[in-house]
């Protein structure tokens, strides 16, 4: 395929960027590992001693850890479920030939371009606010009691916001996949007597298996690290109800000033992310073969 000369040239030319990326990754990792073995609190400077794995013990036995692990998994799982199911539906809808289809598609994709802090603020102040929010107005005009979203169902509120942000991504990927579905296959199914639902379950859904896998993999990577939406709206509360691993590490480092503990937490998060990734790849990876 390629000659020896082009291979050597390729290696030489990629070496600088590979080297840079490697350093970029390995230096922070090494420093985090180093910090995680120190008693390192910003409130007591000059007392950095080597304490072995004590930081890990504290982090893993902290009741906040299990709570935030649970929250992380619930958040990731719920958002994946909502975005994949609704995304498939939205993709099917905007694949239909309707008037103004291009504008509809643009609007559907729009939330993806709004940065997380902004969308969280919009949701918090314009939509979910118990007094001045749109949802509260709808509830009162229907004669119902408005819901104080972030106090009564904080994690669900976060899930709603994050799903709203990631729905366009899922819809977009699934829409392009739908458009690549062979028209003759659908016609063949029609000739075979398949109704709309059978066509969807036997033809369309199997065709979407692979793009759904891609959506799940990519979204999982980003959903494990959701932070801005929590920081802007609930600040991890009430109590620990919306604290996920990312927010827990943040609060260790910058609220409790415990750099050592936060570093240990960061490494635990890396390990957890890898475990999740491994499960995911095992579970859905076979979909990606051929």
């Amino acid at each position, binding site marked *: 395929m390629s000659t020896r000369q082009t291979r050597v040239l390729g290696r030489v030319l990629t070496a600088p960027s590979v080297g840079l990326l490697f350093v970029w990754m390995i230096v922070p990792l090494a420093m985090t590992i180093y910090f995680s073995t120190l008693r390192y609190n910003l409130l007591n400077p000059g007392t950095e001693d080597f304490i072995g794995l004590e930081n890990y013990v504290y982090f893993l036995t902290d009741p906040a850890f299990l709570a935030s692990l649970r929250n992380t998994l619930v958040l990731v799982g719920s958002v994946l479920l909502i975005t994949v199911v609704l995304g498939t539906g939205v993709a099917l809808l905007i694949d239909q030939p309707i008037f103004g289809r291009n504008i509809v598609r643009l609007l559907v994709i729009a939330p993806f371009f709004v940065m997380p802090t902004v969308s969280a603020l919009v949701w918090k102040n314009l939509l979910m606010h118990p007094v001045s929010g749109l949802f509260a107005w709808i509830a009162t005009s229907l004669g119902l009691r408005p819901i104080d979203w972030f106090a009564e169902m904080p994690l669900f509120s976060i899930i709603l916001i994050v799903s709203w942000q990631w729905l366009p991504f899922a819809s977009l990927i699934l829409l392009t996949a739908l458009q690549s579905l062979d028209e003759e296959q659908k016609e063949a199914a029609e000739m*075979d007597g398949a109704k709309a639902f059978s066509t969807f379950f036997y033809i369309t859904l199997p065709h979407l298996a692979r793009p759904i896998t891609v959506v799940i993999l990519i979204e999982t990577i980003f959903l494990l690290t959701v932070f801005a939406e929590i920081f802007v709206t609930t600040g991890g509360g009430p109590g620990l109800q919306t604290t996920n691993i990312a927010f827990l590490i943040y609060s260790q480092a910058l609220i409790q000033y415990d750099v050592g503990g936060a570093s240990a937490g960061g490494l635990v998060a890396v390990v957890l992310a890898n475990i999740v990734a491994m499960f995911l790849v095992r579970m859905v990876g076979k979909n990606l073969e051929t």
Partner: protein
Amino acid sequence: MGSITLDGVRKTFGSVNVIPNVNLEIDDGSFVVFVGPSGCGKSTLLRLIAGLEDISDGRILIDGRDVTNVPPAKRGLSMVFQSYALYPHMSVRGNIGFGLKMAGLPKAEIDRKVEGAASILNLTPYLDRKPRELSGGQRQRVAIGRAIVREPEGFLFDEPLSNLDAALRVNMRLEIAKLQKDLATTAVYVTHDQVEAMTMADKIVVLNAGNVEQYGTPLELYERPANLFVAGFIGSPRMNFIGGRIASAHGAATIGIRPEHLRVAREEGGQGEGWSGVISVAEHLGSDTFLYVDAGEAGTLTARVIGELGLNEGGRVTLKPDPAHIHRFDQTGKAIRP
């Protein structure tokens, strides 16, 4: 049990009149081929019969039953698509049995029918493979299996052989023709390849711009083309057309003479009508030789010679038409029959 009647069928896409008005009677058990240049509406006509497109006007009857507003699956027809349109995630068994499963047949009966169809098509060893693990010819057979397993009143083929290589195409052509005779099911077959049309068809429909130019047996079309279009379309190499004074001498606006009905002589003059000229290109196929001759007033003529005459570019020859095979056409292109 499977005659198909098109009664004043019209199809428009927006303001474009794709099929102006087609009346056609397809007999039960016959093999009818729609042939025509690309864009002539032959695939559209097939899709109208299948029910994949709505007709704008007219009626379609299958076996005397008006199916104009009947959905595709209820028309009792099955279709083989150009791309085969196999379901990629289903095994061969699943593909062939899908229609039966949708019809709600019991599992045992589906298995029995699928295995029956597979054994007719020599697909039994491949029943549990996925389409991507099959060769082109095998996929084609699966597509046909999917069509025959439903025991339809008619088959519709949409250029089914165009994705196969030349050798396989000849093979599948024979197999499809034989299968259709064995099952004695009506078949409508769309192709742009006149060799397929001539060899497979009981009757050929020549289409041009959505109009039926002629409907008849292959030999009728070859021997008695109804007009210039059919005369030029059927036959390879195509018929020579000569206009002007030479045609007037025959009492026609245009005369047509097929390459195989021109006798090639080396000497000038001789008895009867003849046009002499210089060979511009000679194509030697071994079994035949095609000569392209610049014949002055008669224009460039193509002549077909059986075997090898040792004629080459630049040689002078005289082409003598066989008077029995001169086709005469009037001003509007219609054939003049004595």
